[in-house]
């Protein structure tokens, strides 16, 4: 994902939208989060959600800016986001790509192809490629 971000960040606005926890300690906890010691309860306040998002951003070295979902979870539900999902919104304000329900159907390759179709990629050398 970082590679996709680095490749297209000059033409595309990337955002992580931080939503409710997928596997909180007080909900459906899974072995991987226990093993990796990523142990957080479901956020009770916006400040708590923001704090966990901050920890996530630092620990995972997220290169893209992070937006915080409000505690009503309306955006999450509207986008069918939880636990994770990819979208691409075109300059026309319409959905250019809607990823499958994550995590099982998370498809970075398809997302990248959709982004490529939206922009003219800039090579790593900084030169715009021919259309």
């Amino acid at each position: 994902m970082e590679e996709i971000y680095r490749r297209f960040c000059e033409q595309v606005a990337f955002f992580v939208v931080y939503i409710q926890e997928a596997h909180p300690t007080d909900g459906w906890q899974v072995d991987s989060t226990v093993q990796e010691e990523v142990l957080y309860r479901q956020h009770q306040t916006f400040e708590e959600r923001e704090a966990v998002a901050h920890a996530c951003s630092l620990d995972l070295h997220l290169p893209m800016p992070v937006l915080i979902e409000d505690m009503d979870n309306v955006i999450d539900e509207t986008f069918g986001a939880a636990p994770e999902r990819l979208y691409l919104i075109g300059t026309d304000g319409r959905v250019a790509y809607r990823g499958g329900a994550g995590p099982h159907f998370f498809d970075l390759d398809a997302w990248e192809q959709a982004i490529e179709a939206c922009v003219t990629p800039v090579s790593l050398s900084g030169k715009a490629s021919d259309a």
Partner: protein
Amino acid sequence: MTKGERDRLMTSMSEEQRAEFRRIITALRVERKASVGRQASIRELVAAGKVEVSPELRHVAEALMERDETGPKVGGPVPDFYLKRLESDERVRLSSFQGKRPVALVFGSYT
């Protein structure tokens, strides 16, 4: 169905059912990647008989299909949002990018 309701459905499965569900997911992933544009819906794949779902897991598959279908559709309008940016007092409005640049969104959480 809310996330909490889906989570309860998932955690109510027996080990045997979970193993079967993982098989179904794996098969759906393969079929989806092979579909046109890699964007066939789960419901389309199941309806076409690409992947068989046992009757005892039909309700779990239905929850998965429902979530897969939730959200603004390709080509359709996008719900606007105005969300706070981490480590900033700034709020970002999604619609402010219209006419300027595409927006790539990654929804998720740490756990």
